[in-house]
């Protein structure tokens, strides 16, 4: 087990600081917020212990909660479905483009930009025609005025506009992960396969895909967890409005805690979010360990 051949004490010295920080900054707050979820508390005055009432309200009486959970899950699934696309793109780039690095960097730029900037940028694109919205401008100049919409204020389409921006932003991120993963595969295998007659897509099917699974898994987990926690983009672009039409779990949590001053209730939502994240991470890991066993 002790492959490093260093005494346990040294390991402890190196691990402890991080472990302590992690426990103090992650585990303790999670436990505290679980406890706060059991309180009726406005964040200022003294709190009252009400047991699981917040959770009951959340599950049975809150008209905003389940729709926002649904939107969050749709968001998460959409961002997972994006990853095979990224992988395909990465394979194509790797095969057909000679100096793909610069292209990948370009795809990566939206990830470097702050979400606030991205949000403002897309807001001006989505703006209504009267405020000079670019997308509507383009549609009208193409002779498709009936396609023009108030993208961010029509409750039926606003959320999809947000999904799109987020998928657009993180496309480059996952592309980069997959691309680097593929580049790190040893070229000898491909050369050997070529001699055996496996070339092109056949090589991808039998070599790239099985070997890339661990990288693929990382991307999927990151995408999934990231989108469950989606907050900033929604806050910048719509603030959860119009009338909760674009609320996701985390914005609902924020609004409940800080605007409605129901801090305890907000903490209950946060607890729910943590548990959902944990459950899905375990599920994803299980699925992938099965896949890895199969292809291995």
């Amino acid at each position, binding site marked *: 087990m002790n492959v490093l051949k260093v005494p346990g004490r040294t390991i402890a010295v*190196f691990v402890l600081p991080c472990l302590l920080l992690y426990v103090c900054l992650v585990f303790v707050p999670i436990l505290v917020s679980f406890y706060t979820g059991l309180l009726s508390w406005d964040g200022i005055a003294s709190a009252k212990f009400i047991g699981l009432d917040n959770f009951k309200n959340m599950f049975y009486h809150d008209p905003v909660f389940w729709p926002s959970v649904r939107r969050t899950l749709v968001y998460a699934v959409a961002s997972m479905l994006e990853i095979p696309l990224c992988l395909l793109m990465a394979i194509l780039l790797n095969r057909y483009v000679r100096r793909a690095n610069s292209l990948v960097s370009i795809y990566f730029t939206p990830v470097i930009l702050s979400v606030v900037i991205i949000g403002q940028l897309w807001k001006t694109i989505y703006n209504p025609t009267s405020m000079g919205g670019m997308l509507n401008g383009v549609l009208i100049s193409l002779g498709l005025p009936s396609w023009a919409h108030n993208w961010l204020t029509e409750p039926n389409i606003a959320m999809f506009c947000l999904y799109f921006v987020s998928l657009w932003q993180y496309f480059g991120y996952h592309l980069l992960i997959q691309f680097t993963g593929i580049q790190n595969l040893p070229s000898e295998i491909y050369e050997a396969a070529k001699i055996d007659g496996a070339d092109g897509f056949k090589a991808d099917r039998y070599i790239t895909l099985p070997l890339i699974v661990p990288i693929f898994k990382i991307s999927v987990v990151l995408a999934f967890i990231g989108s469950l926690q989606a907050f900033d983009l929604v806050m910048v672009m719509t603030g959860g409005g119009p009338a909760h039409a674009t609320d996701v779990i985390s914005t609902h949590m924020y609004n409940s805690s*800080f605007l409605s*001053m129901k801090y305890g209730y907000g903490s209950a939502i946060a607890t729910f979010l943590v548990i959902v994240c944990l459950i899905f991470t375990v599920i994803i890991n299980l699925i992938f360990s099965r896949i890895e066993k199969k292809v291995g």
Partner: protein
Amino acid sequence: MVQKPLRKTLSILMAGALTLSLAACGSGAKSDSGTDSSNASSGGDKASDKKVTITFQNIYPDPTTPTYKTLHTLVEEYEKANPNIHIELDTLNTDQQKMKLKTQAASKEVPDITIVNPSAQMKPFVDAKLLAPLNDVIDKNGLKDTYQAGLLDNYSFDGNVYALPDGNNIEVVYYNKDLFKQAGIEKVPTTFDEFLADVKALKAKGITPLAIGEKDSWTGSFLFMNMLLRTNGGPGFLKDVVDGKKKFDDPAFIEAVDRFQDLVQAGAFPDGATSIDANAGGNIFKSGKAAMWVIGTWETGAIDASSVAGKVGAFQFPTINGKGNLNDFMLAPGSGFAISANSEHLQETKDFLNYFTLNFPKKQFENKNAVGLGQKVEGDLKSGGYSDLAIEVAGLFNNIKGGDLAFDNTMNPATAQVHLSSIQNLFVQKTDSKQVAEEHQAAFEANK
């Protein structure tokens, strides 16, 4: 051979760096609390030559506004007259300040002077005993008598005053005279039917009738409350609801929602209003693209400084179906200066606040910001060089017969949030007014 000692030194170095950085974190936190406790001891004895630092959290970040200038001159003058006092300004914009104060309140670390909003919004802070009663402050130097009659009631609980307002505004309809002329509107509307007809006339000319920035949902609510004030035949609807005398399914409330939807259906508001924030919404009017703007009189100065200056007039919100009185207004008592009950230098802070609020109206008058002051001030607007609009608006103040406070100043925050998003929803889809009323009632009962 060199490798082994190298690795050892490296590992020792790394471990050292780690512990150091940890220690740095620890000592950082410690030194913070250290200064706090030293402050406490210096505040304990009241020697006047002791250095005292008063933290003044405020919401006037924009250097181009008159209030910013007023604040800074008053602070400088006070520091010059009292060399031992240093006033540290913690300047934030309104929303950030609200958020920061809530976080500070949760850990009982309210700054010496902070800003709270009237009535229901400041009640949680008062209930938590975070604010100091200011009765002795207003009794000193006749400060109490400078405030308009009844204004301090909005900041009083159980006979104690807990905050001193920076102003007292009403909500009026500003209109662009040029755009009204273009649409062939002769006189300002006094009934809702006329108002709606004007909206349609403006719309027909391709002019946005009403400017609004409904992404900040208080703007729509502030407008809606005018209509409720009319359909209810006078002030007091929300108070009656709180007292259990009325419910939200009252015909007055339903009618207000219906009339509000009439405005939306007539296309009174800009496209995509719910994605426009309050500032951008105001700019639609101030840049001459919209004909009317229903907003508090605190905007008078800003309108005079904009490109539509000189073209703007103001009128009272019209009556609805013969109900309501033109001289009932939506009242907006300003944000209030409050003192932390746990302030380390309570007396010094109170002395400063007394000086500040006594001189505030005079400085505001000099800085051309006397419209919407909550305090009486000597001086004549006309000879003070104020604009016609400012004088017209000041004239409306003389007509005030009564009025209501904004929804979120009357109801608790949780109910107010449901109300705000319910009104926001009216901007994007036609809704059964009964359902709106039910939503309100349910939220009110759930959060009583």
